């Protein structure tokens, strides 16, 4: 069955954005980007909430920038052609290979999981919180950056009950980013 994988770049103190939604602390060197690009082969769908989609929409045109490194252009190409589903009641318009879903998240995801296909990559802490409450996330992937931000947008929101996960893979990058992969 297809899996939903919640994957984020995160600070040591658990934020996916710094104050003022700042992302300048992201380490996006060749080693990390190449690894992330390779991981995209595993997915045939991206799942986003509105806010994350608005951030990721950057990749819609990033391959047009001639001064972008090759690994960024490659990611942009992969991202653009991969089907995306955005879960939002308020978003009016989407562009590119995007389908908008306004409600019945549990039904929608359950249906998708039962279909044949590859895994689905989930991004965005607000939508992820909803998915977690509904028990829809199968795997968590944290790219832990060597920085404490002090405040920002947390990767994990409040839960009714703690979740006990199983570590299945780790990797350390030259930049000091540590990749931690957990399953339920």
């Amino acid at each position, binding site marked *: 069955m297809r899996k939903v994988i919640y994957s984020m770049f995160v600070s*040591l*103190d*658990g934020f996916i954005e*710094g104050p003022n939604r700042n992302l300048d*602390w992201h380490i996006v060197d060749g080693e990390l980007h190449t690894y992330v690009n390779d991981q995209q082969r595993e997915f045939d769908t991206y799942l986003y909430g509105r806010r994350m989609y608005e951030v990721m929409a950057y990749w819609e045109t990033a391959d047009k920038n001639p001064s972008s490194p090759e690994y960024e252009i490659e990611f942009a190409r992969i991202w653009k052609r991969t089907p995306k589903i955005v879960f939002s009641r308020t978003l009016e318009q989407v562009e590119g290979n995007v389908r908008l879903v306004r409600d019945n998240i549990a039904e929608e995801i359950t249906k998708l999981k039962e279909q044949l296909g590859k895994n689905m990559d989930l991004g965005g802490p607000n939508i992820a919180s909803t998915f*977690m409450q509904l028990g829809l996330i199968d795997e*968590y992937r*944290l790219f*832990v950056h*060597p*920085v*404490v*931000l*002090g*405040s920002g947008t*947390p*990767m*994990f*929101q*409040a*839960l*009714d*009950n*703690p*979740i*006990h*996960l*199983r*570590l299945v893979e*780790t990797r*350390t990058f030259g930049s*000091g*980013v*540590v990749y*931690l992969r*957990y399953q339920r």
Partner: protein
Amino acid sequence: MNSDDISLETEWSDPMRKVIMWNMVTLDGFFEGPSKGQIDWFLFDDELEKYITGSQMSAGTLLFGRVTYEGMAAYWPSAEGQLAGFMNRVPKVVFSRTLERADWNNTRLVRENVPEEVSQLKQQPGGDIFIFGSADLASTLIPHGLIDEYRLGVSPFVLGGGTPLFKAGSGRLKLKLLEARVLKSGVVILHYKPE
């Protein structure tokens, strides 16, 4: 003493003591939770105990804020084993304006001038100085650059609530990864120093 004596002393003395923060922490950044003092997610097995005793037995002093101190002082005096022996024996300092007395064996109570006290402690001879828990105390020391190493045992839990290890508003701290070690339990030990 003249200046020649001082330089000789510097040559022979140990490098300045390191202040090392050690904590178990969850994926969502809590060192206790969801309720106050709750630590049943620690996954404390033989391998973790071996790591802790191996890396911390050389500690010369432990530093605490009041809340962590009170929890420790209620637990360790009646506990048994090698780690208990160490915790009860090692010199301890608790920083608090409100604590009336500090009765746990070998504890000194300090009421003010926290950064100065810690700075002075670092300049004295002795083993490494460890901080456990004590998020408030840590947030006082971090802006002064007084913590030399951060060691975190990342436990495979998302609690959804609890006490954050790094207090809000403490500002950005850039780190350099020194080591990442994976234990059989799924706990990942991460060592950092400030960059």
